[in-house]
């Protein structure tokens, strides 16, 4: 009951935007198609922090393909 009460209070406090994912995703799919499915230029990576470089290496070493 306490958790449910806390949760309700936090939801009532939300003043930002609410996005319904299926509606958002469908609209974005259509927009992408209208624009010919543009790709975003990938980051060069030269501004990565040492922490970020180490994390990406760890992901790669684990077999990640991001």
């Amino acid at each position, binding site marked *: 009951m306490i*958790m449910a009460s*806390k*949760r309700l209070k*936090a939801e009532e406090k*939300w*003043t*930002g*935007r*609410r*996005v*319904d*994912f*299926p509606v*958002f*995703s*469908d609209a*974005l*799919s259509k*927009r*992408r*198609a209208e*624009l010919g*499915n*543009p*790709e*975003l*230029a*990938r*980051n*060069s990576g*030269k*501004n990565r922090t*040492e*922490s*970020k470089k*180490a*994390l*990406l*290496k*760890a*992901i790669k*070493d*684990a*077999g*990640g*393909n*991001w």
Partner: protein
Amino acid sequence: MTTYRPEFEAALRLFARVSEAMHELGFQRPILVGGAAAEFYSQSAINTGDFDLCTPRQEALEAEMQKVGFVKPSGAGQMTKGWIHPELRLGFEVVADIPMDGGYDRDTLALIENFTNEGAFVVISVEDLIADRMGQYASGTSRDRLRQAQTLYRLHPSLDKVYLDRRIREETINDYGIEALES
């Protein structure tokens, strides 16, 4: 129909789970920023390497991340402040307490609902994401960010142009405005 790549959807599901856990604890949900936010707003038109998160409750968030399988990398990866999920082979990293040094309007944050029944999650607004890209472009260190910003702008025709223009001017110290996206 274009969709998100499976690896990114898996990461979003984990993000939703830990976000909901934070919410259940009475804390604000972490905020997704950076490259993963760009992938979210472009439907995987760019593939990011990991999830950058903002939360003032780093310790609590990382405790929740461990509960869903995140671990500290070993070997050379020990240098990172981030965490990896060995099974899904993805990484999460808390990069700041709040996005963009607090220069954004909190009411523009997006609470993403109905992605999964495991919980909602929060993403920085597309306007702030674009302004962030423009700030990096204007600094001269990331010239590739202009094209990212322009593409994100075209993908979201209903965004708040007044807010976007203000935020670009703030992030670029008035070097650029919304017109830079329309060229």
